[in-house]
């Protein structure tokens, strides 16, 4: 069955439906984040000082390093798909687990920074804080969703590979590449006042 799934995947000329579905979903999410980023800069242009007085400039180094680590997880995620395509199911699972571990550490540290920021400046006090926490929070939420997708696949691959799971893996890999590009965009927006 696994071998069949892998073979069919390789013999397709067009991308499978699940990939296309993920592509369209990525388009809506990208537009949503475009709106959030656009809001950030729109509010910046309508405010005389950004961040407003009393709010410190955003941290640069920690978010930068963390984002780099996250972006790097595109590699194991892509490896997972390539391995599964060649019917190397255990390797695929291992690659997914590697990605998950790195992403979990990323998320934990990012949440720590997020809560730290919340203690320093509150979204109840300024538009800056409101868009800052909404934008960054939305990004973290997308990371959580991505991790859930990976975890689900790790579990499903235990009973082997099917066409359905392979397309799911391909779609998840696409999702992660998108989230990682998004991470860079969000990071640049988030730290832009300090640049």
């Amino acid at each position: 069955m696994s071998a069949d799934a892998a073979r069919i995947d390789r013999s397709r000329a067009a991308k499978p439906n699940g990939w296309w579905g993920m592509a369209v979903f990525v388009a809506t999410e990208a537009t949503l984040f475009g709106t959030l980023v656009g809001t950030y800069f729109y509010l910046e242009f309508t405010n005389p000082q950004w961040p407003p007085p009393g709010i410190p400039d955003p941290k640069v180094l920690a978010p930068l390093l963390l984002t780099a680590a996250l972006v790097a997880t595109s590699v194991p995620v892509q490896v997972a798909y390539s391995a599964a395509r060649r019917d190397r199911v255990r390797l695929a699972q291992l690659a997914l687990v590697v990605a998950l571990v790195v992403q979990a550490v990323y998320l934990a540290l990012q949440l720590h920074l997020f809560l730290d920021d919340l203690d320093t400046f509150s979204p109840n006090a300024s538009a800056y804080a409101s868009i800052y926490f909404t934008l960054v929070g939305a990004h973290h939420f997308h990371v959580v969703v991505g991790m859930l997708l990976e975890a689900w696949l790790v579990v499903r691959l235990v009973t082997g590979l099917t066409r359905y799971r392979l397309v799911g893996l391909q779609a998840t890999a696409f999702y992660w590449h998108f989230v990682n590009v998004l991470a860079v965009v969000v990071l640049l927006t988030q730290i832009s006042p300090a640049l």
Partner: protein
Amino acid sequence: MAVDVLTPGAEQRIERLHRVWRPRPGVLGWLTTVDHKRIGLLYFFTTLAFFGAGGIEALLMRTQLAGPDLNVVGPETYDQLMTMHGVTMIFFFIIPMTTGAFGNYLVPLMIGARDMAFPRLNALSYWIFLGSGIFIYVGLFMHRAPNCGWFCYTPLNRRAFDPGPNVDFYALGLIFNSIASTATALNFIVTIFKLRAPGMSLNRMPLFIFAMLAVSLSLIFALPSLTADLVYLELQRKGGFHFFDVAHGGDAFLWQHLFWLFGHPEVYIIVLPAFGIATSIIPTFSKRRMIAFPLVALAELLVAFIGFGVWAHHMFATGLPTITLVAFAAASMMVVIPSTIQVFAWTFTVVLGRPEFRAPLLFIGGFIVFFVLGGLSGIMFAAIPFDQATTDTYFVVAHFHFIIFGAAVFPILGGMYYWFPKVTGRLYHERAAQISFWLTFFGTALTFFPMHIVGLLGMTRRVYTYKPHLGWDAYNLSETIGSFILAAGLLLIFANLVWSRFRGAPSGPDPFRGGTLEWATSSPPPEYNFAVIPKVTSPYPNWDPADREDDARRLQAGTLVLEEGHETPAVTVRDGYLDEVLRMPAESPWPVVVGLGVALIFTMLLLSHFVLASVAAGLTLFALAGWHLQEPELE
């Protein structure tokens, strides 16, 4: 392909298809259906109910405005009625009717497929749509319906000025609803790209499909703007965030920009499927192909695309810098061109053909008349000083009702008559249908035309009453009378359809000699749509008799009959070459369960029970897991 005599081989294959595709019986069958035709019918009847609700809201408004200083309803009730009328008609009638009902039913049939790309997602779209409609209407039944106008500007939408749950019903209800529309749009895009019958390259797609593709792309790129705006609104109202208030660095125009970034593409979303219906009816009843087919297809896509660049023309009176206004006026004039191309292509197709003015074509005639009328008043708004004088008056109300009612609803009504035989297997009553057209046409004209005049006489929008000395009385009374005539026309249409459903003459598979594939199968279509996947070599496959005979041969031979399970072919995107055979899911309980979960999430958010909302989210995730445990190829 309607074959009169089946060979034994072909009969056996059809018997197997019947067995494989037989639906689960009873109510459970409907609750768990993933069949695009059943989902289309569910959408149809649900949206009709919302149309009725929106219509009653309109009639109540018109009764209150029939004369000056009346007291049929007070200001709070009126404000809820006018807001709910707009919200209902746009989000719970027009879009789900054209995409969810017409689109769902017809797209797979027209492209020669057996279902949509994601049948369970399709079902989920319906349940979420239904849930969101019930959600908002609970607000109306509590007399706490949204009351801020359908575009609910800030600061009026803030808790300080609208403290009750009204605006929360609005914001959460529309976010809830947008999930359904996004899922439907996603489904259409993938289906149109991947599930066409082999041989249907992109340039051989019917114009209806081009219209659905344009609508779907618009929905995908327009909805996120509204979603973000509504999320900001709820974060501001429930979380004390500051996006829109100046005192804390926010901006009142942020709401308007994001709203109209969605709102303008939205009006093309409303009208594009109507274009698709018109371009299906015109060739059939004119008995010839559409003139300038590639131009029309391109125009449909261009309208959607250019429509993203004109949003601030809804803000000409707000005090934005003049250079900004001028830029948006220029863009707004550009978007006229693809529409004028289409108007003349439609009209010349009728002139050049041998038109038979049966009811569907009459409605399209009415559509063209009203679309041109509404379009011309729309062009007038591109003259900025004129817009600045007449925006927010009944002149605008006239403009958009001629477009929405005249140009979007008329094709829907014509389409109901046109595809009625396909869905029911019976013919509608032609004479009554023609009368219903004239009644509806006259009612529409009488309701909305005087609004141009009364707007120029200074009557502003969203007023629950007006004074007698301004000369508006007679026009308002005419509009009210017109609205009841219009209602009568609509009732006659529905009476005709209901009567014909039970007493109409049998229609056969192709009573109007249509050119697209839905007419190549029986009326109503079998669960599997086509016994053999049709061969396609042109955009009007049902007018290619050689290809239809080829279908009969392949049915006998078993080529692309795909009777092993719920199967349909997938093709390459551009050229439509056969790429793989897909396994589709049979009935599934998970869409309705996930729909319930999502409804629970939004209800908890409305009540500000954020912990319970998270619990509901967790339960929904479990349901999604159940969903993905059900893999079609393992069934």
